[in-house]
């Protein structure tokens, strides 16, 4: 079953990313530690969404895009005042 293989690769990829993110925290990269950790978290989220959650079709993507846009509004307009 190729589906099973896909899921297994996804799973192993997630564990690898976990190792990477934990490992990176022991290396001092200055401000890049934060960026790297968040980028890895985003990569993991995308892996989960695409492989495990089957994020396909217009409507589910619409829902995700809307939430993303609204999060940008929430964060952006709260932080401009600071």
């Amino acid at each position, binding site marked *: 079953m190729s589906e099973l293989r896909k899921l297994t690769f996804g799973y192993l990829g997630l564990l690898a990313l976990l190792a990477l993110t934990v490992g990176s925290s022991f290396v001092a990269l200055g401000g890049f530690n934060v960026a790297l950790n968040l980028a890895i978290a985003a990569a993991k989220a995308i892996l989960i969404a695409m492989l*495990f959650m089957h994020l396909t079709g217009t409507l589910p993507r619409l829902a995700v895009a809307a939430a993303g846009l609204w999060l940008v509004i929430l964060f952006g307009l709260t*932080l401009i005042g600071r």
Partner: protein
Amino acid sequence: MSGTESVAFDTPQRERRADTFAMWVFIGSEAMLFGAIFLVFLVAHIDFGPAFAAASKRLSLPLGTLNTAVLITSSFTMALAHMLALHRRWRPTIWALVATAALGVCFLIVKGIEYGKEISEGLAPLLGLPFRYAGPDPVHAEFFFGLYFTMTSLHALHLIGGIVVIAGMIALWRPSGPANRLRRVVAVGLYWHFVDIIWVFMFPVLYLINR
């Protein structure tokens, strides 16, 4: 109606599409909830970065990492359940669901151990418990631990909800027909993966950032 749960739909396929969409809308809504909490953390982090970094070092990285792995594994078994349900292999589906819920319980146990450790070390500023923190800037370290307990317990509540729903689904397994089984596995799966994604962000934000 033939095999649909709601009178509104004429075919199970249309109903499943609507279900999936509804779950995604719900996930979008949940994302706003956690987004707001993350925003609170971010604002505090901007203001008190060094104090937060020092306090963050007192959390247990090994247990946090273990828990992340546990939760990722539970997502994997949930994805397996989905795949198996699509092929109508119901018995293995149940086992995959049981494994998912069991891993969820594992996560909660580890989290409980962590909480116990933090409370005994005097790092839990809750319910008037003594807060004994030796590092610099204890006031803002207390703030960090307040946020830590808020965020992780909110996440744990979502996980408990997921476990309860999986348990209920298994309890009602026999009377529900194949169409309903698949719909429920898909819907619960989406929720479970979302709770996993939240943890995927919470873990670096709480345990790793500025170590």
